[in-house]
């Protein structure tokens, strides 16, 4: 009995043939609407910080080293590839590429760093504050100040078991009111 069932299985399998991909030895490109690793075009980027504002995983950081130089850091290790940054970019400087072969042993390999020149106001010498004139809106905008994750985190530490010392530390800690 088992033999007949095996024969039947073989006959069933003959029809579709071999379906296994020869993937690592032959390329298998992703479909067109696939969102892979984002890439920045530093010629188009104006450094507005919108991508940093909208990033759900907070993996795009904006750092102003001086008045006229801005550094955008992309940390791909916790990027969820949602494509929100490419959506909100006003200059279409971010494209979601088709790259998915990002496996590495070192997390530094999936980072991106862009240095941008910022134009300054001729009257006051500071960077443009284009459309956000409202003080509340300016508070929300992360692009125009030094960006540090440590300062933004509410609770810094987690432990395996309950630890009264850590609780004491975190209870004292407050979210910084001014950055």
């Amino acid at each position, binding site marked *: 009995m088992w033999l007949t069932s095996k024969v039947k299985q073989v006959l069933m399998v003959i029809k579709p043939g071999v379906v*296994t991909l020869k993937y690592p030895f032959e390329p298998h490109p992703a479909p067109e609407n696939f969102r892979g690793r984002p890439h920045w075009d530093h010629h188009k980027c104006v450094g507005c910080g919108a991508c940093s504002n909208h990033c759900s995983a907070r993996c795009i950081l904006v750092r102003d080293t001086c008045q006229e130089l801005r550094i955008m850091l992309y940390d791909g290790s*916790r990027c969820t590839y949602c494509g929100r940054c490419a959506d909100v970019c006003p200059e279409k400087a971010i494209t979601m590429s088709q790259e998915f072969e*990002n496996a590495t042993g070192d997390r530094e390999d999936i980072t991106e760093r862009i*240095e941008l020149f910022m134009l300054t106001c001729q009257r006051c010498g500071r960077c443009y504050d284009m459309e956000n004139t409202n003080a509340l809106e300016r508070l929300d905008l992360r692009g125009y100040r030094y960006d540090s994750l440590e300062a933004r985190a509410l609770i810094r530490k987690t432990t395996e078991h309950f630890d009264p010392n850590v609780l004491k530390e975190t209870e004292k800690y407050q979210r910084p009111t001014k950055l």
Partner: protein
Amino acid sequence: MLSNLAKKFFGRSLWVYHCNSGSCNGCDIEILNVLTPYYDVERFGIKLVASPRHADVMLISGGVTRPTLALAKKAYDAMPEPKLVFGIGSCATGGGSWFDTYNVSGGADKAVPVNYFIPGCPPRPEAIIYGVALALGLVPKQAAPIELKQMEFPIDMYERNKAWEQRNVIYELLKN
């Protein structure tokens, strides 16, 4: 002699143990997808085992949550040497969107030493196969850090059109 032959032909066959440390099941579905006949990883001798004591490789998915932190460590200690750990998905790589929340330790490398990171949310089955093939030495590494710089200072808004023309003239001269 037989053992030498066996080492030669059956070497580098990884038995994987799948450890879910609080992931959303997206990565787990992709891992199961890799084991199907379409992406047949038994070509490389990869087999899913139920116990960490039988395993060479731990596939850890999910940013390690507080309840699973001790269990993930225990499972890692139970594996025999030599052992590899693959962090699968954005959560295992760097904590995902929950990297600094109170109940997530922020990445699999906070709990166990991770050898290979496979980012993606969830990673494609091909990406997981690529990561495994990278560990086996079948494919070259493709990811590299990117550094971009604006070399020319941007032109002032009021003189934009004129300066653009001048710059383009220079480029056309360079072409010729």
